[in-house]
């Protein structure tokens, strides 16, 4: 179970995605954010697609499976993915 907490150094985090790119979530680099993100349906195994960024270098507009979510950079970076 603790395997879902991985180091972002070993695996790429979602922030490395380019707009339009998709990856699969494998875990999180912060336990605290993991708990909150998972309650909102951001789960290991889910597909994550980076759609666009808000104006003024703002939040990230994402599709998690088929649903839309906005995250700030910190939360976005905490998601560990596999491309």
């Amino acid at each position: 179970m603790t395997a879902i907490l991985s180091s972002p150094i070993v695996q790429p985090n979602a922030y490395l995605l380019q707009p339009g790119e998709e990856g699969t979530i494998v875990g999180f680099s912060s336990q605290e954010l993991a708990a909150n993100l998972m309650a909102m349906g951001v789960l290991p195994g889910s597909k994550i697609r980076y759609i666009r960024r808000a104006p003024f270098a703002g939040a990230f507009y994402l599709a998690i499976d088929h649903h839309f979510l906005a995250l700030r950079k910190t939360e976005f970076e905490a998601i560990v993915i596999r491309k």
Partner: protein
Amino acid sequence: MNNSYSPTSSRPFRLALIGNPNSGKSSVFNRLTGLQQKVGNFPGVTVDKKIGSYELPGGEKINLIDFPGAYSFYPTAQDEKIVVQTLANPLDENYPDAILYVADFTRLEKHLLLFTQIRDLGLPAILGLNMADMAEERGREVDTALLSKKIGAPVVVLSSHSGEGFQELEQYIHQVTNQKSVNAPSSFYRPNNTEKQIAEALSDAFPTNTVYQNILLAHHYQWLPFLSKDDRQLIAEVTKKHDFKTLRHQVQETMARFDKFEPVAKATIKETATDSPGFTEKVDRILTHKVFGPLIFLLLMFFVFQAIYAWAGYPMDGIEWIFGQLNEMVKAVLPAGWVTDLLTDGILAGLGGVVIFIPQIAILFFLINLLEEVGYMARAAYMFDSLMHFFGLNGRSLVALISSGACAIPAIMSTRTIANWKERLITILVAPFISCSARLPVYVVLIGFVVPAGNGDGFFNRQGLAFMGLYFLGIIAALGTALFFKYILKTEERSTLMLELPEYRRPLFRNVSLNVWDKVRSFVIEAGKVILVISIILWALASYGPAEKMAAAEAQTTAIATAQNLDAQAKDNLEASLRLEASYAGQMGKYIEPVIRPLGFDWKMGVAIICSFAAREVFVGTMATIYSVGSADDDDQTGIIERLTNERNPVTGERVYNTATSASLLIFYVFAMMCMSTLAVVKRETKSWKWPIFQFFLMTGIAYLASFAVYQWLA
């Protein structure tokens, strides 16, 4: 347990309505209860508790309690906490007898976490799959029989738009109230050894019913309000003994639940998969576009405020006419005397001042609500999050600030969705700077003296533009002070944004109209009460005064009238004005006149300002009362604006409401903290008098300085 329900007990059956945010829970609530709703508070907090009484076709009465939307039993924000703190405590006055869980059918796989947690409370439950119409559009189908078997609860597919499934739902509710369908809840979570041992250790000391409720105590004992100091001590010891790490157990539990119910959801749902981007994604390419998105937002807001000005005029004229007629009728029917004067100059004048603004408030609430219903407000929060963050706020603050354009009270209460305390506090402190609907009346009356009517050379209504300018001024003040607080206040807490962007959906007229009705009703009742009382007091203060001064006023009138050889009409006017000056209200206004003189205000405005500190909307009513008392001409049917226009300085003959004074007064009302109800809510939300007092002096101080500057510049 004495809190449990039996068909013979005297209290109605309590059915809790629970679900994730954006599950369409409120639509289900509105569809079931219609106008049979009451709004109260959950104990100790100002989170709205909506209770709807609802009668089943068989005649049984049940109480439907609408809980705030929550994602799980591990809350991040204030309003989510209500759900755990009620459901972990079987002795709570709102502890339900059964649960109606509403999930969004289109996102069922994600919306079941809280449902599986609720199953572990051992309460009968019904699962409603809402938004059937949207699911259908996507070719989504569910095997309700299979799902129902797997989760051990009846499942019904609902559409709040068409009413599909609601008859079936009523049957299930009927079964649940008769406790015929208490299926053995199938659990989606097997507690591990540590959790079991902790639950065991706590089970005797607490009124909890299930293992899971005890585990929840171990997670949340530090803040759960129903626990005593000793309780906390005990739980702290137990969790320490078992080396219970709440975050780690929370993550493990969440994973375990998803692992178990996701396959169930997938097995029972069929979907003709479409990989092409859906409607929402296409629309958002434009609406949340880096450049067009914010522009469209500004345009929408511009339209909202133009609409208020353009549409509200006709109904307002109508209301003014009706009150004019009423006034005339009362005067024709009743004999002249103080009772008639109280009715016409006191009560009718004051009430008219409230009712006249219903059209504007209704339009504002209607449009804001419509944007919320459609799903646009979440996009606005997304687009402006970084800008808000720069000012020490949160994307969610934007929604609160916009609602503040209607009323600061619901806006301040809506900040409970902001998890970070500092961001929430700043939002609370600056929200009242945004011009609320109570300032509308003042603006409407005074803008006319500063800006001429009509379209000028341009295309837009000039007064509408001035109106927008005042709103911008409020916004600038709000953001400026927010920035100030950002550097003053310190916090260790992490600031996050996790914002669901729901699919765009057709607005439900029922939801929007119920909401508007709710807000307008509470404005009329709450503001109306205050205004009515104040207008009666004012009428008395303005009609009576110290005997010797009143006598002196009369003597003076006679002296001047004789000296200048005035006719009866002019003499009456003079007497009314001198009497008002000698009255108690006049004395009060004169007492503060030295302070407000540099802002260009006379003692009559002083009276209105004093009264406005109770609530700003009193201003126009007060002016109406003061000037109708001051006018001897009882056939005078002209509105308040006309009366103010005709008001002249008795010595110099200049118009009292000249540009400088009116502008100064406008600026004062933009900034000053003049609303007791807001201060009371701030006290409740921040749990201390420190913040409301600070807020009062800050805002009023800014108002005084700004008005001073404007008057000295223009005069």
